[in-house]
Each structure stands twice: as C-alpha cells, then as structure tokens.
C-alpha cells in the first residue's frame, strides 16, 4: 500500500464551503493563504489557496496572481465559471504543470505538495498549479564518499535535483522513472529509476512490489525503505547499496541496477547488489586500471584485517604461540608481563575505548573535535601503555584495525566488519584459530545463503561467474570489459561496447616525416 488516499469528496459549486473544508482540514494553520479575486462585471469569484511555507512566493505572484488579475475586466463576454476555467488554463496561468481537480481530498494532497489550488465559484472543477518552493541545499561535494579523481557532485535532499543529476548523466530515452508516494503522514516521494532492457524485468517488478508493500506513516530517510525491502531481516551484511554520488548511481543503473531515490535524503539506494560491490569505489573506474587494481586488493586485505586482526592476535598469543618466531614471542611476552588482564579483556577494553572515541568524534561539536585525538592518542594510548594497563602491541593491533576499517569504501559494510570483529574476538579467545575458522565458516555459509533481489550475494565467487571476474579482484581496462556483469544485468542485453578497442601504436602515415633521420642529416 503506497498512499493512504481518503474517500472521494467532490468539489462543490459553492466556493466558501470548499474553502472552509480545506481550511478546517488543515487545522486553520497560520501559514495558510487564501487570496481571493473577483470580477463584478462577469460575476467571477475565485481564490488562490496555498500554504505559505511550501511555495515559491515569486512564482505565485508573477505566474499566477499577476496574469489572472490582468484578465479581470478584459473579458466581459466570459460569463460562466467553466469558461473562466478554460481561459485561465489556456491564457492566464503561465506555469508548467497544471492539474485539473475534481476532488477535495486531491486538492488537499496538492496543497501539501506545495502547489497552489485555484477554485472558482460555480465550478465543480479546480486547478492545481505547480508552485512548490522552499529553501533547498545546493549541490555540494560528497561528504562520505570522497574521491581524488572524479566528479565532485553529490546528491542533495531534493528529489528533483537528484533526478536532474541522474538525467544529465544518462541522456537515454531508455532511462525509466516511476514515482511513488510512501508514508501515510509524510507522503514521501520515492523515484524508482532503471534502464529499460538493461535492468532485469523481474528485479524491477520485485522492487516495485516490495515498495508497494510498505505500509508505514513516515519515511524520513532511505534507510527506512532499505529496512522494509531488504532480503534478509537478520544479517550483518547490507543487501542494498547506498550512495550519495550521482556518478556511482548512474554507473549502477547502467549495469542493470535499480536506483531508489527518496525525497529528503542524499542517499540513493541501489539494488540488486553483490558483496564485492561494497569493496569497490567509483574512483576505481576513473583512476588508471593498474593502481585501481592495487587499491582494490588493498581494500580486500583491509576488510579481513578489520574483521580478524584482533581475534588472530588473541588466538595466537593465547593458544598458538608456537606459530610465532621466538624473538617476536619473547618481545610480546615481555610487553605483556606487567599487564594484569588476559589478552581478550585487554583487546575488548581497547576496542570499546576506540569505538567510544569514534562515536564521540562524530557527535562532538567540530570546534572541539581535535581534543578527541589528543585524548585518544595521548591519554588512552601512551598513558595506558605506560601505566601497564595494556601492552604496546595491543595498541598497534587496535590502531591498525581501526585504520583498516576506514579503507572499506561502503560505511555499512565497514560497520558489519566492526560488529563481526567482536564476535571473532570472543571465538578466538575461547577456541583459538579453531573458533575463528568455525566463525568464518558460519559467516561464509550465511553470506552464501543471502540474496539481493534474487541475485546470489557471493557472486561471482560462488556461483562462479568467470566473465564477471574482469571487475572483481582486478579492474581490467575499460576496453576489455565488453560485457555488463551477468548476475545483475539483463541477459538479453549484455554487450555494452564494441570489441577491438584496445589502443594500438598508430601506423606511420605517408606524409609524416622521419624527424630523427632529418635531424641526423
């Protein structure tokens, strides 16, 4: 169920009763404006009805009120209300979007959208003119998904701005947009965007069906929608990707993903998605492929480090000391000599301290932000080691784990790694590497059982899809990636570019002179 529409309530010919009904429904709020106009010579009586805080005042004055008042007295032959409606629509009202209304509930919905309702005495029809306004943030640089090379634009909270950012990137008539309204109170606009013939029809239908099933009073951010429509209710792993980068969204759409843009948030959802997508950055496609591949491999390593390093440290120092070379073992033992806690307690204390610092860093006012780093680095790091509460090795482990976590491009996947880390630490402390290995097996089984809108989450690792490997661990040059990813894109339209585009050394043309030989001569 999308919008909670009320019953039909026809617009009456009696203008004051219509105005009174709308006024009462809106609770006689102070920001309601009812601007009347009349023409005594023709008997015209009408109102502009709008909510001041939602409209663009300039549009109303210049495009609605001004032209309408100019017509008053200029058309003595126009007598009936229906003729006036026709005249206003075809001549006076100079706005792009104008909608005919016959129902008061619909008129109310249009008012809530920021539109202006024009009603006339004696007419059962009214009009809604598009006058939505209000302050909105300009397009700025992305705050959470920054790149060195690549577009510096970010989505904003305004759905129309976001749509224009996408439309400007994909100028194809096959780009399809379906608008929905979700939330009985907030009536939030949601746009489903996909490429016809590239997105799988089944996925598009499934997205629509899941969105239509949402029955809630409010959608304030795309996170609400994500929780309603994701495949698995109980999992650490996100099965829907989110981005604030228009280029990333466009890239996803061009590979067959369906974008869900929610009014009021710059974070756009993309589905279906596989696990590896969360370790890819849009910059991978803007940088040269060699460095992009290297960075991608670093990210895979960082993901495992951020999930496993503390638990491996605990397991090896507690259960499998024989794995360490003797000098390192002696050094670690010497460091831990004065520490009163077992490795697991030491690690938990440090990890929780770091999480507290991190949370404080996010919540604290920016001006006192640097204080956090001083407190973290000096008081809780150096001082704790000097006081003998934790070993220096543990500080290194926790710090490196924390830094590795920031390497993961998708914050929701980084959060998953953060949570899994604690479980792994407990497993490592109780069962050593056997516990960690068992935990990893459970994770792998769980991930293998996940699907995102019908697509296996672990693809292309398993099920093994060899053609997709051009863009998994490595990123091959663009000319080598002739086809779209098989798991996500429609099988009927996989080819995205022509073959044989590998750059070659140009053959020497006849008129070109051999500069070298000439200079020698």
């Amino acid at each position, binding site marked *: 169920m999308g919008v909670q529409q009320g019953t039909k309530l026809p617009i009456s010919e009696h203008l004051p009763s219509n105005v009174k009904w709308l006024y009462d429904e809106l609770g006689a709020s102070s920001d309601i404006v009812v601007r009347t106009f009349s023409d005594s010579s023709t008997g015209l009586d009408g109102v502009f009805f709008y909510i001041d805080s939602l409209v663009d005042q300039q549009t109303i004055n210049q495009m609605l009120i001004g032209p309408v008042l100019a017509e008053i007295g200029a058309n003595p032959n126009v007598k009936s209300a229906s003729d006036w409606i026709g005249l206003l629509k075809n001549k006076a009202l100079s706005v792009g979007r104008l909608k005919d209304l016959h129902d008061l509930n619909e008129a109310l919905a249009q008012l809530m959208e920021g539109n202006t309702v024009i009603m006339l005495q004696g007419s059962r029809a009214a009009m809604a003119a598009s006058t939505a306004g209000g302050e909105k943030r300009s397009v700025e640089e992305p705050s959470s998904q920054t790149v060195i090379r690549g577009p510096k634009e970010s989505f904003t909270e305004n759905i129309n701005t976001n749509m224009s950012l996408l439309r400007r990137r994909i100028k194809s008539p096959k780009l399809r947009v379906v608008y929905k309204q979700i939330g009985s109170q907030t009536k939030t606009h949601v746009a489903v965007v996909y490429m016809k013939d590239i997105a799988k029809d089944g996925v598009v239908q499934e997205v629509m069906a899941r969105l239509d099933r949402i029955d809630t009073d409010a959608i304030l951010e795309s996170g609400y929608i994500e929780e309603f429509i994701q495949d698995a209710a109980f999992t650490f792993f996100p099965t829907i990707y989110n981005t604030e980068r228009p280029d990333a969204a466009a890239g996803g759409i061009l590979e067959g993903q369906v974008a869900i843009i929610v009014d009021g948030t710059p974070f756009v959802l993309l589905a279906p998605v596989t696990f590896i997508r969360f370790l890819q950055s849009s910059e991978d496609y803007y940088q040269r492929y060699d460095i992009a591949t290297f960075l991608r491999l670093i990210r895979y390593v960082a993901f495992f480090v951020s999930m496993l390093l503390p638990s491996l440290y605990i397991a090896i120092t507690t259960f499998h000391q024989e794995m360490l070379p003797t000098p390192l073992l002696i050094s670690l033992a010497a460091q831990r000599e004065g520490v009163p806690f077992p490795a697991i307690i030491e690690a938990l204390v440090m990890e929780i301290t770091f999480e507290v610092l991190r949370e404080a860093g996010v919540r604290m006012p920016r001006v006192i932000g640097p204080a956090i780093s001083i407190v973290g680095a000096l008081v809780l790091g150096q001082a704790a080691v000097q006081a003998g509460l934790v070993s220096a090795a543990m500080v290194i482990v926790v710090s490196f784990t924390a830094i590795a976590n920031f390497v993961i491009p998708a914050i929701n996947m980084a959060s998953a790694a953060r949570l899994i880390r604690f479980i792994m630490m407990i497993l490592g402390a109780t069962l050593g590497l056997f516990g960690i290995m068992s935990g990893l097996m459970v994770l792998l*089984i769980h991930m293998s059982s996940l699907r995102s809108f019908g697509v296996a989450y672990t693809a292309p690792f398993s099920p093994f899809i060899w053609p997709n490997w051009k863009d998994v661990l490595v990123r091959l040059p663009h000319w080598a990636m002739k086809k779209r990813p098989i798991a996500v894109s429609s099988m009927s339209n996989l080819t995205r570019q022509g073959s044989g585009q590998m750059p070659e050394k140009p053959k020497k043309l006849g008129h070109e002179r051999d500069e070298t030989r000439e200079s020698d001569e």
Partner: protein
Amino acid sequence: MSQEQIPYQQISAFQAVILLVHTITPTAMLVIPSIAIGRAGQDAWMSILAAWACGMVFILMYSRMIRDNPAGVPFLKFVESRLGRVVTTIVGVLLAHYYLSTLSGIIRELIEFLSDAVLLRTPMLVIGGVAVGVAVYSAIHGLEVVARVGIVVFGFSVVLFFVHIFLLVDHLHLKYLAPIGEASVNHIIGGSFPAIGWFSESSLLLLMAPYVSRQAAIRTIGLWGMSLSAMFLLLTVIVAILVFGPSLPGMMAYPTSSVAETIDYDFVERMDVLFIFSWMSTIYLKICMFFFGTVHCFRTVFRVQNRKPFYIAFGVLALLTGLYTWESTADLSEYQRYAIVPFKLSMNVGLPFLLLLALWITKKSRGREVDKR
C-alpha cells in the same frame, strides 16, 4: 524450502564436481597416506593410481544407474518406482545407517586430529559440538548453499595446498621415490584398498544427481570429481614420500600434517596450523554432505516433510556416536585400517551393484511386457 523442490535447490555441474571432491578428499588426505605408504612404500603413488582406475569404474556404474532417473526425482523415489516400496525401505535404511555411521567416524577423526595437533587441552565434546553445529547450520540451508560454500572453500584450500607444496621445495628429495617398482603387486594392491574405499564415497553422486542442473553431464561430473580427488591424494602421498621417505609416513598417525610441520622459515613458524584450519573448512563440507545423505535417505524412506529438526537430531546422534563408539585413538585407527574399507565398499559398491542388476532386470522384463502388448 524442501530439498525436493528442484528449481530452487539446483546446483551447477561445476559445483557438483567440487562437492564430489569435498566428499572424498578431506579425510582421505588425512588417513590414506599413512596406510598406503605403510603397505606399498615409495610405490604408494601406484596404489593411488590403481585406486583411481577403480574409482572411474565406480563412476561409470553410478552414472549408468541414474541414466534412467528422471530429472528432479530423488534417487530413492526412482528406485521405489522400479523396485517397489519394500526394497526401497531396505536400501534407504541401509544407506541412512551407512551415512550416519560414516558421519560419526568423520566427526571423531576431526576431533582426534585437532586434539592431537593443535587443541591439546580443549574437551573433545566442545570441538565436536562446534564442528557439528557449523555443519548443521550449513546443511539446514540446503544443498545449493553448501555447493556455493564449497566453491569458495575449494578456491582457498587449493591455493593453500599449492602454496604449502611450494614452501616445501627445500625439503623434497626426489631420491626417496627410487627405486620405482620395488614393491610387489600384492603390496601395491594392498595399499590401494583404503583409497578404493574412500573413492567409493563418490556414490553420493546418486543422491546428488537429481539436483544437478545438467543431468546429461552426470558422468562427466563424476569422472572430473574422481580425477581431481585422485590428483590431490596422489600429490599428498608423493609429497609425504618426498619429505619423509618410504618408511616414516607408515608409522605416523597423520603424515599430511607432519609434512606441513616441517615448513619453517625465520619470519614464521608452524605454518601447519594455518593449513590445518584450511583443511578443517573442507571437512566441514564433507560432514555437510554426509548429513545430506543421512537426512535425505531418512526423509525419503519415512516420507518426512520437515527436514530441519532432523538435521539437529542426527547431528546430536552423530556427535555422541562419534564420541563414544571408539574408546581410544587406537580403536579408531584400527577401525580405519581394517573395518572401514569393507564397510564402505559393501555400501557404496556392493549395494549399488545389486541395485543396478535389479534395475536392469526390471527394465528388461518391462521391455518384454511392452513388446508382448
């Protein structure tokens, strides 16, 4: 989702090959080198090759049996349609018993190995409990998920397997393989028996086949799975001989892990622990496959609809059987050396052979009836 709903629980040919490898190799690589090298000395690799030839014959037999099995129909249902309910019940109960017994043996092998190699003080119940818990969690998700996990685990374990051989380069002595052919044929055949027993575990193909998306490729799947398994086993045996010579491995409980223990570089020691844990992930899959066999036979024979509770019940049963059937490691070792191979062969080769004969006879008699009509 029921296992019988084929369109959902469907595995690809490649996944089936990998599952077959996981069904055979994890315990084979642990147990067979000691027995095979103990009997055939430096010619143990010939024993593995002989066993591989037998394994290929088994695969031909299994693929012949399921040639008439319609896609999507579980093997025992197919047997029931041809040989009747009584025969199916007997076969199903025998197979369920075999899979459960073997499952307990595998769990006990895992426990013994981990207790012996790395977790010296951890109670056996805890090790077994965790292993069974993970395997049950996996098996509950169905064959499709197990197959997907199998691909990832196979990728990692193959890389580690070859890295481990590469790291052993300094310790490999080719001279240990000479003189070639010193062992008598009797010894070589004697050394091949355990491997033949393990290769016969490929009979799980009979139960797995209806879930494979490419029914026509079952024989190829079986042959590839068998050949890959034989290759890994062959490499394991050869490496054990090259590192320790023809005499020592026969006296070791687990020569495969002892080989990994010899890896020693200045910056890292006891790399065997890593290899042990990568091996452990493969044995989880083997346990899953035998869980699948046990529950599948049980459900088909007793026509049980809900499978999840039975995974848990059989998990507990297999764990307790594994813990308390063999009083000591020596008992387990004796069972592996003498009893397990005849048991495996009777259930994986003898029983299917009888079934094949019966299916052939019924097919013939049906054909005659049709001709008469």
